[in-house]
């Protein structure tokens, strides 16, 4: 079933000797510890690991489906919950930021402006908070049979994506209300921005999920960190209100790759401009780094999970 490529073994010397049948082995004294040359070293190679992940895609889909079912099965309002959270936040933000203080939206209605920020933010935060706990919550499944463990956080990200899609339907209501229509150019640029968003989200989520297995305390810290994240992400405000210069914007986008995603969405959908390329590039570079680092950390920690869990 598996090519075993991600399950590398150390070189074996003595036991490869075919003349030594298992039955005869009892005669030799059992050593106190393994010979150092047979110590197990897990080598992770990217391509086989990805191939294996692809092999288990149905499992990821089944898991995502399971979590969606479980979530909405027990809820009275069902799928509506995916709409309610961003909708209420949008209403609250709109109330606060149009009545009490003013945010420069570049001329767009604030409700639309903030909702376009809330969609990717809600996706990111629910992916990290659900996906971050996905390994801990699935310990019985982890301990039953082998599967590439990434499927659990990835399934959670899939769920968050499904929620984002559902929540996007609110836009169908908001656009006519404010007399806006999404610019046609969106078809071209939105998938690109989503690619950036996914890269960053997967990197953060798998890293968090693996570390949480070893440090359960993080479960308690995680919601706090995510809440703080809302304030350093241009959801309620525009990046331009804190990054005045082009350089500052690039640095900001590098540190928080969600910024170019949200800025880009607003640029593209509301104004029909292309995204600002330099911040987008900065965000892409840092997202790829986060994904690579997250994957490395995950694979590093994966081997010992069954010992801890």
């Amino acid at each position: 079933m598996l090519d075993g490529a991600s399950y590398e073994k150390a070189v074996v010397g003595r036991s490869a000797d075919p003349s030594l049948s298992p039955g005869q082995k009892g005669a030799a004294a059992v050593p106190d510890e393994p010979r150092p040359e047979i110590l197990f070293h897990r080598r992770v190679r990217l391509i086989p690991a990805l191939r294996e992940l692809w092999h288990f895609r149905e499992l990821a889909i089944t898991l995502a489906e399971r979590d969606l079912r479980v979530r909405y099965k027990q809820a009275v309002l069902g799928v509506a919950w995916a709409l309610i959270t961003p909708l209420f936040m949008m209403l609250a933000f709109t109330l606060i930021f149009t009545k009490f203080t003013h945010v420069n939206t570049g001329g767009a209605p604030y409700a639309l402006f903030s909702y376009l920020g809330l969609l990717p933010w809600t996706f990111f935060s629910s992916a990290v908070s659900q996906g971050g706990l996905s390994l801990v919550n699935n310990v019985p499944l982890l301990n039953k049979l082998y599967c590439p463990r990434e499927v659990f956080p990835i399934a959670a990200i899939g769920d968050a994506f499904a929620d984002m899609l559902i929540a996007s339907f609110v836009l169908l209501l908001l656009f006519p209300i404010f007399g806006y229509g999404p610019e046609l150019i969106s078809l071209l640029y939105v998938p690109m921005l989503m690619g950036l968003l996914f890269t960053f989200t997967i990197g953060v989520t798998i890293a968090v999920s693996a570390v949480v297995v070893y440090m359960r305390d993080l479960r308690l810290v995680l919601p706090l960190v995510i809440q703080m994240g809302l304030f350093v992400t241009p959801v309620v405000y525009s990046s331009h209100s804190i990054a005045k210069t082009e350089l500052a914007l690039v640095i900001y986008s590098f540190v928080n790759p969600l910024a170019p995603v949200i800025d880009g969405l607003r640029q593209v959908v509301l104004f029909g401009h292309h995204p600002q390329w330099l911040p987008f590039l900065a965000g892409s570079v840092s997202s790829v780094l986060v994904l690579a680092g997250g994957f490395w950390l995950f694979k590093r920690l994966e081997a010992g999970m069954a010992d801890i869990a």
Partner: protein
Amino acid sequence: MREGTVRTTEVWKKFRQDDRPSYLQDRVATLKDRIQGRSRPSWRWALSDIDFSAEPGESWALVGANGAGKSTLLKILTRVMYPTAGRVDVTGRVGALIEVRAGISPLLTGRENIYLTGSLMGLKRRDVASRFDEIVAFAELEDAVDRQVKYYSTGMQMRLGFGVAAHLEPDLLFVDEVLAVGDASFQQRCLERIRYVLGQGTTLLFVSHDLAAVEATCANGVWLHNGGIRTRGPIREVLNDYRAAVEGEAESRPQIEGLLKVSKIEATSPDGGLPKTGGRLDVDISIHSDERYRAWVYLGVSEGAATPIFLLNPGRETMFEFGQTDVHCTIGSLPLPAGRYYLWGGVYKNWTNGEELVGWQPLTHFDVYGPELDAAPRAVVRLSPLHVDSEWEIEKV
């Protein structure tokens, strides 16, 4: 034919030993070590130097005391756990029944769980769908399959788990001490199913403390002791060794006294040699008493464990006066095949449920000389290894 093979060479696994609570700073240190690829001391070897292999269609039992490493070995074979050292090669799709609830989501229905386990085993949905009805029928869950599993009884969960593991055509089937949960008829059907998948070439690894079921199911056995392989080979030899060791431990407990004190125990044949199958066995026991008791004396013969092959009692109460009482028991025709057996005994105040005067315990052991026990057909459970003389006439009509 299936192609499930297992091969481990020099597999070692170490476990954390100290159970002190780990505070945040400990975990940070552990995490740091782990990222740097170092490991910290205070470990013990859960498995040491395990060489084991199973070919397609073979059936292997893993026996041993709790903590001997049986489940750890299975976890390494399912690739859930990584060995500390050594090489593990497992080819083929694995169906595993590790714990009753492992991998079953209580919030999902039985139907959803079947598909989930299927994808965990690496099967496509349509493959699962084609066997879905068979699984449900086997598990007798026709009425419950669309109910959430949290409303299932333990037995129903077990049936679901076994049904899925055994029907999704695994190349390797790992069963870890779970069948005990099912009722007798379901256990029987599980064993039948195991026999069927064995016939199809599936490789079986069976962990159980039910030695009778183990003996009936598996042709070969491995006895794990403190993480190492103690004996490996045909199941009956392995079990004999294992039972003898269990007995050895029991025998080393030096307390053959309760309110009564047993002083002399002998189990001999009249001619002074080894007792023979179908021959006579004399048992002599001397019991000291400080009081008068009316009591029932029981003797039992076992292969090592406390569960005897047969029980004997005099059929009436025995009077114990102050001082020594000699009890003599003769078994006229010993119905045991060749092997080592253990004589257990106990003295009770009332008939079957009375207060213990001498607790049920091993008294001595004896070796029987005679024919070997006949081999049982696969998946036929023999409760007791008795030798019964029989004559057959088979005529062609």
